[in-house]
């Protein structure tokens, strides 16, 4: 790993960042740099900034929902708008915040982790990113068309979605565009990992982050077209007289749910697997020990991915399946606990007898481990069909998936940001702010989402703008927590902006003494082009 060429790199490192440089290997100046860039680091930055903006947009929607639910009765928004908020909050957080954030991490880190000069298809990379803003604009415009934005839930179940106004068409187009973007991004990532690894970097030597992304990208290539197909059929049902999902014409509304969740369940692993990869990078670094059970981690991820294709109907236990169907999907779903358990145990074993320190990335990794496992347990409770009958479509489910999506994916991305931002910007983040952000997020997250378990058990359905009196107290607790959680994220924004502005200690090439992957062999920030001559891995 000592043979990294610095000759080319140093020539550019001395240039001011905004130099108008038409040199073939340097960035364009000004805004055109970002529009025309084919550099994996620039595109990674674009993805991450985009997802941060979308995170706040989706967050404001979440706060609107929590504000309306602060007390029983209708106070702030109309029920239609409330439904649009829950729908768009879901779509934007999934397709606008978490997925692009994961792709941003992949763009920045995968070439550096495997010793590649860039992504395999640099221009397609640019295109995958620049498809996202138009998609989000379509979603934004949908608020202003007759009928308002889509209000049938992010799952878009017909016939409710066939009934909706033009906002639904815009949402369908937005999903098509975001799907195309994801598929291109995934093809790029798979090709990069399979073809561009440095000599000696065998698949089983790759950092686990690359493995989780390789498998995630396969899942994306397989299931995004399924979603595209489902919404295309929805579109033709709406406008071209087909009756795929209309019982009156011989269709079946439940078939949409089967197709949607055939996409939807792998999708939740698409959202969490890159997070697993980040956690698998952070924990060994701060425990100063190699990752425990590397091979079993890879097999566990592959196992989770394969199982994710045969469990989809656990999202629809209440549609009235035959007992055989219920049993099959219950057993398959319970099986997922095995590989997931293996991963959690491996992380714990990595920490065991280590030499741990607790900087912000490690705090978020531990927070992830703790809360994601809690979400895993509620997942197990929900897998038991008879219990799920009581809990399906209640706040218990809302609590469950926020434990795995927010405390899971999002916390891992926060941890990953603090972990790699010294590398990205060349400036250390403010440790005090990082810790404050962690504790704020951790405490308010639990105040927001823990009571939702009780609400769901007590019988509060999800997606309702108003509720009966017995749910009042816990809802108020949750709303207070949501406000605190939202405000805590401003700390993150501030800490990130400080790093980007270079306000902080200068980061050394390897700020974490436990880090032993390739990116730490590069200077911080890395030169615009890295590993043009591949490093040699023993």
């Amino acid at each position, binding site marked *: 790993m000592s043979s990294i060429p610095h000759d080319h790199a140093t020539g550019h490192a001395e240039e001011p960042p905004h130099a108008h440089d038409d040199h073939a290997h340097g960035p364009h100046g000004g805004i055109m740099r970002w529009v025309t860039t084919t550099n994996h680091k620039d595109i990674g930055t674009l993805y991450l900034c985009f997802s941060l903006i979308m995170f706040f947009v989706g967050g404001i929607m979440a706060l609107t929902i929590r504000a309306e639910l602060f007390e029983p009765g209708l106070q702030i928004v109309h029920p239609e708008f409330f439904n649009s908020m829950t729908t768009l909050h879901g779509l934007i957080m999934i397709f606008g915040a978490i997925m692009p954030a994961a792709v941003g991490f992949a763009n920045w880190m995968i070439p550096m982790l495997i010793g590649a000069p860039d992504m395999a298809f640099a221009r397609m990379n640019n295109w995958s990113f620049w498809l996202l803003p138009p998609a989000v604009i379509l979603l934004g415009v949908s608020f202003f068309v007759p009928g308002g934005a889509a209000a049938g839930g992010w799952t878009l179940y017909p016939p409710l979605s066939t009934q909706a106004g033009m906002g639904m068409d815009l949402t369908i187009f937005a999903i098509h565009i975001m799907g195309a973007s994801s598929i291109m991004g995934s093809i790029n990532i798979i090709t990069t990992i399979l073809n561009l690894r440095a000599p000696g970097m065998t698949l089983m030597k790759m950092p686990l982050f690359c493995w989780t992304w390789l498998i995630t990208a396969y899942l994306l290539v397989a299931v995004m077209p399924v979603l595209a197909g489902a919404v295309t059929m929805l579109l033709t049902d709406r406008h071209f007289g087909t009756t795929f999902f209309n*019982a009156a014409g011989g269709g079946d509304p439940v078939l949409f749910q089967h197709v949607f969740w055939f996409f939807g369940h792998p999708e939740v692993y698409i959202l969490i697997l890159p997070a697993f990869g980040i956690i698998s990078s952070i924990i060994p670094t701060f425990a100063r*020990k190699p990752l425990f059970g590397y091979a079993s981690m890879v097999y566990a991820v592959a196992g989770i991915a394969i199982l994710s294709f045969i469990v989809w109907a656990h999202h629809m236990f209440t549609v009235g399946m035959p007992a055989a169907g219920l049993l099959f999907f219950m057993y398959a779903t319970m099986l997922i606990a095995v590989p997931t358990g293996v991963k*959690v145990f491996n992380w714990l074993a990595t920490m065991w*007898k280590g030499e*741990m320190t607790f900087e912000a990335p490690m705090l978020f990794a531990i927070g992830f481990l703790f809360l994601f496992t809690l979400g895993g347990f509620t997942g197990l409770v929900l897998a038991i069909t008879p219990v799920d009958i009581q809990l399906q479509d209640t706040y218990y489910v809302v609590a469950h998936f926020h434990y795995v999506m927010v405390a899971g994916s999002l916390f891992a991305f926060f941890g990953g940001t603090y972990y790699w931002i010294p590398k990205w910007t060349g400036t250390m983040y403010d440790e005090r702010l990082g810790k404050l952000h962690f504790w704020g997020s951790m405490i308010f997250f639990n105040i927001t989402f823990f009571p939702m378990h009780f609400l769901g058990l007590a019988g509060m359905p999800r*997606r309702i703008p108003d509720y009966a009196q017995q749910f*009042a107290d816990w809802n108020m607790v949750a709303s207070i927590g949501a406000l605190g959680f939202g405000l805590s994220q401003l700390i993150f924004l501030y800490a990130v902006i400080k790093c980007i502005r270079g306000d902080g200690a200068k980061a050394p090439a390897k700020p974490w003494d436990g880090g032993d992957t390739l990116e730490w062999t590069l200077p911080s920030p890395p030169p615009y082009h890295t590993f043009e001559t591949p490093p040699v891995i023993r």
Partner: protein
Amino acid sequence: MVRNKTGNRAGHRHLRTAFAAMLLGPGTALAALEWNLQTPVTPVAQQMYDLHAFIFWVCVVIFVAVFGVMFYSIFKHRRSVGHKAHQFHENTTVEIIWTVIPFLILLFMAFPATKTILAMKDTTGPGLTVKVTGYQWKWSYDYLQEGFGFYSNLTTPLAQIENRAPKGEHYLLEVDKPMVVPVDTKVRLLITANDVIHSWWVPAFGVKQDAIPGFVRDTWFRADKPGIYRGQCAELCGKEHGFMPIVVEVKSKGDYAAWVSAQKQNAAAAGDDPNKVWDPKDLIARGEKVFASNCAACHQANGKGVPGAFPALDGSKIVNGPEAAQVALLLNGRPGTAMVSWKQLSDTDLAAVITYTRNSWGNHTGESIGPALIKTARQ
């Protein structure tokens, strides 16, 4: 599990309880807060309740064990206490153990769950069959053997929802006509929907079944205890999704028989003569009621609709145009929009509501539509 709170509790009272809950934690006696599933009143719901309790405690034990280890490690194996890292990174025995043990635990969970699933799906031998239909946004119950049926609408006044009046004890969980069933009888439900997917859910019975338009699904329950049980629609079905509760009254067998015969008499008495010639005033008065319970959710009580989403009837071309077009629209609906077919309403109700819309707000056609016209249009 105290659910009967007196209504009209001021906001700051909630806030205080909420803060108390945050500060004092679960150890404190907070009767107002819910912690667990509702008290079951059917054998299946009881099994679900026990199953949840069982899995919950298994999870608690695993959670404490796993995170006990993690926190031990966090406190002992840290640099600040001078611990040095041991560089081990695999151990096949341990890895096999922690793959096999969870698998065995899962088997223990799957066994009782399987039994409950089989019990849950066994709808044979019912003592009573009721057809339940979900509409945007209300439920209807048809007693197929007895030959009568009725709609069940939310009765919570708008003033309570919009905070202009204190909220009642059963805020949002009260209806005009609850479903009534006898105690200790296996009741089979045939569940379907008229427009979009709904879901019929009564937590105390352990029954949640999606109502799917065009398809009939069945489920069952056998209530052990007379009483009034409340639930809600559990599948997002449009803007009034939060406002279509389910109320089931379980009566003793004698009371139930009395209720059935009263219902039969009412049904006979209320049967409208389709050829009756109505006084326009009576027809409009009846139409106003039909409008309020079927149409006002979208088109609004003032007939102005919701701009962009639901058209106004006040000044509408269809309402002020030829009557045949309006009759056809109500009977057939308009595909692809929220305007579904209303042919399930009686001829008299349809005639009444059409007459009402044609003679209300700014509409003054002066026409009165008789039930006979609807009857002809149906054919």
